[in-house]
């Protein structure tokens, strides 16, 4: 019995293989007051196992919509999303989302927030769940705050908890929708370092949405540029820099300015990019 328990914690904390995502011809339109908006127009992309892909584009170009479709929170009008060859038909804990606002539950303390997804996983004992949650709180550096209320945390700490909560059920894919957009620059820089480290340690496939070009160049193996109205993937950059990357490095700045230039070409004056 005891062996079984310890077995399932190690199993639970094991680094599992990340997913391969295949998005094929996904289109989605919304009914708006001023007629239909084509948020995504036949978007195709593939993400390799364990790859870190950043989606960049001005706001309103369909990035969140795409992320929600990959998560299974929204259905595309046409096209398919395959995760490891299986079509995505609804939300599932294999693909967890981290939203721009933390979406943490204010009625739970930090530890219970991280436990939320774990309690929905079958075959875990109370102690297993607790050990797993503690592991991830340590990973994001918040062990001391396990009993803090959510409102007592700074913006950066909230997003760390949200990251721990998303990591805890051990998903194969992490979908991040502008998770750092509301944070100050210093906090963000710290999180860039931590996220790269965690990504390396936990091996996840990450799709990361941002409108910050530097951030994309710092984090992504690849950066995909979205064009608005209709939302399409316009161009793609492979970022070939060693990790961990420093957001302030000169090489990175070079990539960022190339991406910014490309973005300017097709987004015209609607520019809300780069710092």
């Amino acid at each position: 019995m005891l062996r079984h328990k310890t077995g399932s914690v190690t199993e639970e904390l094991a680094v599992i293989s990340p997913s391969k995502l295949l998005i094929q011809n996904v289109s989605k339109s919304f009914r708006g007051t001023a007629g239909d908006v084509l948020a995504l127009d036949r978007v195709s992309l593939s993400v390799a196992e364990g790859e870190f892909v950043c989606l960049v584009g001005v706001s309103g170009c369909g990035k969140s919509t795409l992320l929600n479709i990959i998560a299974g929170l929204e259905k595309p009008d046409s096209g398919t999303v395959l995760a490891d060859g299986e079509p995505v038909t609804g939300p599932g804990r294999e693909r967890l989302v981290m939203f721009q606002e933390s979406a943490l539950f204010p009625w739970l303390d930090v530890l219970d927030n991280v436990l939320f997804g774990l309690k929905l996983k079958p075959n875990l004992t109370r102690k297993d769940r607790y050990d797993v949650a503690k592991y991830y709180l340590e990973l994001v550096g918040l062990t001391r705050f396990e009993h803090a209320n959510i409102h007592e945390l700074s913006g950066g700490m909230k997003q760390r908890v949200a990251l721990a909560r998303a990591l805890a059920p051990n998903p194969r894919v992490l979908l991040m929708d502008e998770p750092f957009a509301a944070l100050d620059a210093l906090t963000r820089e710290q999180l860039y370092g931590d996220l790269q480290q965690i990504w390396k340690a936990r091996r996840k496939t990450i799709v990361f949405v941002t409108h910050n070009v530097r951030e994309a160049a710092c984090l992504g193996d690849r950066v995909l540029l979205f064009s608005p109205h209709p939302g399409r993937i316009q161009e793609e950059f492979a970022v070939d820099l060693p990790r961990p990357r420093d957001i302030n490095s000169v090489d990175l700045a070079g990539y960022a300015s190339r991406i910014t230039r490309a973005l300017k070409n097709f987004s015209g004056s609607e520019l809300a990019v780069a710092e």
Partner: protein
Amino acid sequence: MKRILFSLVFFSVLIALWEGAFRAKIWSPVLLPAPIQVVQYLENAVTDGTLFHATVITMRRLLVGYFIGILGGLPLGFLTARAKIFHDTIGTLALGLQTLPSVCWVPLALLWFGQSEAAMLFVVVMGTLWSVVIATDTGVRNVPPIYRRAALTMGSKRLHMWFKVILPAALPFIVSGMKQGWAFAWRSLMAAEIFVTILTGFGLGQLLHYGRELSAMDQVIGIMFVIVVIGLLADKIFFSPIERFLHRRWGTSQA
């Protein structure tokens, strides 16, 4: 400490003024008894058991009706918040009936149920139910959609979603609705007990009523005092701790 002292002084002054008014014989002693007479009445009522008995009867009516009102109000509020058809029907009904002072249910209850416990129960349930329905409805509508979405990705659905996400997220609204429901139920039960004699049990309202019939002002004031104390205790023992917890968790400011 200082605050306790201040309120002690305040209430001592109040009682002294009362005693002064009694001694000055501004009103006849039948209309304004001395504080000590009220204390004596309460002492007697406690020792002969009438007070305890009446309190138990009143509280039983109140609590049973109150919990029925909450148990009915929560699911109805969930329904009106989630389905248009329920919103347009039960929701509208609730909104209308909630504006009706709950004392107005007393005549109807009497005609329907006669002078019975059922009539009392009905009045209390009506006082509670609509407030809870409306508060739950508002609470559920105000749950940020992002909580649902986050919970969905983690595998929460149906009952789990209702009990572990929607209900706690709506709790601040629901608690204030419960508090309002309590106040309505308490007031209307007192009115019902004062107006209606029910042979299956004499509650506090009936003691108050007989105090008036007998022109026993010490009894009237004594029972009023008990009613006030029960109201205060409900607040201090039940609602205040819940509200404090909510304020602490949500980080909302507390007056």
